C-alpha cells in the first residue's frame, strides 16, 4: 500500500495509488458525483430554509418610522404637575399598542440637569425601567410608583427606590401651532443624559451602555 501519510501528497490520483485512476486525474469520478449531489441538496435545502430564517429573524432588524402624535392643546398641561395622556406606540393592534405618557411643561427651576435641554415639554413614559410594568404618578407623594415590584421615581423620573436600574424613559416633544406633539422615545441614564431607547432592566451608567447595545430595530438617536 502506498504511504498515504507522505508530506507532499501528489494531487494526481494516479500517484496516490487510487484504483481506476487515469493519467492527469485529480478528482475521482466518485468524489465528483458525491460532491455535486451534496451541493445540489444544499442548494435545495437553502432555497426554503434561508428565506424562512430571514423571515423569523427579520423583525429584529426592521425599524418603524418616527411618528409624531398630537396629544392635546398647550393649555392642557401645567408646569409643576403631570397630566397623563394616551399615546399609540404601535398602530394597528388596538389597545395592546397604546401606552401612557405623563406630560409637563419644561420648568427651568426644576429641570436643571445640564443634559436636560431642548424639549419644550417633558414627556415621561409610564414604562417602568425595571421590567416594563406601567407606573402611576401619585400626586400626594409626588412620585411615580410601580405596582409590580415597588419601583419609585421622583418628579424628574429618576429612581429613588426599588429595583429599577435607570430613570424612566422619555419622549421627544414639540409644539406645532397650538398642539403639543409627542415623538420618538429615548432612554436616559441617572444623569439624564440621552441614549437610544433601551429595554427595561438595562442599566445605562458606566459600562451599561456598551454591555446593552442599542439594537438595529430601535431608532438610533
Amino acid at each position, binding site marked *: 500500500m502506498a504511504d498515504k501519510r507522505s508530506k507532499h501528497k501528489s494531487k494526481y490520483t494516479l500517484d496516490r495509488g487510487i484504483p481506476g485512476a487515469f493519467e492527469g486525474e485529480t478528482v475521482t469520478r466518485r468524489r465528483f458525483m458525491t460532491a455535486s449531489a451534496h451541493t445540489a441538496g444544499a442548494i435545495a435545502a437553502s432555497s426554503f430554509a434561508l428565506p424562512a430564517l430571514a423571515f423569523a429573524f427579520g*423583525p429584529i432588524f426592521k425599524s418603524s418610522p418616527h411618528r409624531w402624535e398630537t396629544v392635546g392643546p398647550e393649555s392642557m398641561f401645567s408646569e409643576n404637575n403631570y397630566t397623563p395622556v394616551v399615546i399609540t406606540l404601535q398602530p394597528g393592534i388596538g389597545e395592546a399598542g397604546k401606552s401612557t405618557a405623563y406630560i409637563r411643561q419644561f420648568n427651568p427651576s426644576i429641570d436643571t440637569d445640564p443634559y436636560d435641554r431642548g424639549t419644550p415639554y417633558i414627556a415621561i413614559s409610564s414604562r417602568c425601567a425595571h*421590567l416594563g410594568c406601567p407606573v402611576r404618578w401619585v400626586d400626594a407623594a409626588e412620585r411615580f410608583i410601580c405596582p*409590580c415590584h415597588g419601583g419609585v421615581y421622583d418628579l424628574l423620573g429618576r429612581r429613588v427606590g426599588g429595583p429599577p436600574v435607570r430613570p424612566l424613559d422619555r419622549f421627544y416633544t414639540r409644539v406645532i401651532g397650538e398642539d403639543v406633539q409627542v415623538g420618538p422615545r429615548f432612554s436616559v441614564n441617572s444623569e439624564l443624559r440621552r441614549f437610544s431607547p*433601551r*429595554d427595561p432592566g*438595562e442599566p445605562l451608567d458606566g459600562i451599561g451602555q456598551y454591555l446593552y447595545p442599542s439594537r438595529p*430595530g430601535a431608532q438610533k438617536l
Partner: protein
Amino acid sequence: MPKLPKLPAPPLPGPMQNPPPRPGDGNGPMTPLEGAAQAGITVIDWVDERTSLSGAARWMMFRKVPKGTNWFYTLGSATMFAFLNQAVTGVFLAMYYRPDASGGAYESIRYVTNDVFLGQFVRGMHKWGSSVMVILVFLHMGRTFFFGAYKYPRELNWVIGVVLLILTMVMSFTGYLLPFDQRAYWATIVGVNINGTGPLIGPYLSDFLRGGSEFGATTLSRFYAIHMLLIPGALATLIGAHLYLVAKLGTTAPPWQKAQTRAELREAEV
C-alpha cells in the same frame, strides 16, 4: 469490550402463550363474541404480517423490570399523559382560537369559555393541565436524580430529559400570552424584559422573542406559531427518543435495592 450476555426475548404473559382455541374445533358454532374477537384478530394479523409491528410492541410492553420497581416509576408516564392531554385539548382549542392582537384573541377565548358546549371544561383542562405537567416533570426529574438513574449508560437520556424540561417551560411561557388579557400581556412584557437583562445578547434575545423592538402586531402570531407548531414537534420527537432509550436501556432498581450477586463471585469473609 467484553461481550455482554444477551437477554432472552421478551416473554409473553401466561394467557397469551398458548394459541387460542379456534372456533369450530369441536367447541360448537362461533358465538357472536368469538366472531367479533376473530374479526379483530384478523385485522391485526393483516397489519402485522405487512409491518412486523407486533415484535416491536412486545419489545416495548413486555420488558423485564428490576426488583423493587415502585410507584415512583410511574411519574414519567404520568408526565407523558399530561402532555397528551395538553396536545388533545390544545388541538380542540385551536379550532376556535384567533391569534389577533387587536381584540380577536380575547374574544375567541371568551367565546370558547362562555358559549361553546364544554368549552369552559376543555379550556380548564388545558390551563390546569399545564400546571400539572410542570409539577410532574419536576417530580420525575427529582425521582431520576435521587435514584441515580442518570448514570452510565443513561446520560444521554438525562440530557434529552433536560431539553424536554426546557421545552416544557417554553411552552408554558408562550402559551401564557395567548388569552391576551391583562395578566397575559403584562406577564409577557415582564418575561421578555427579563430576557433583555442578560448582558450583550440579552437585547437581541428580547427582540427575537417580541419580533421587533416593541411589542407589536407580529408578537402574538409569533408566540402562537412557536406554541402550536415548533415546540410540540420538537417535544414529540424528543419524547419518542426518550421512550426508545428507556426501553432499550431498561430501568434501574431503586437505590435501596441490593444486587443479588452469585455466590461464587462473592469474596469470602475472613
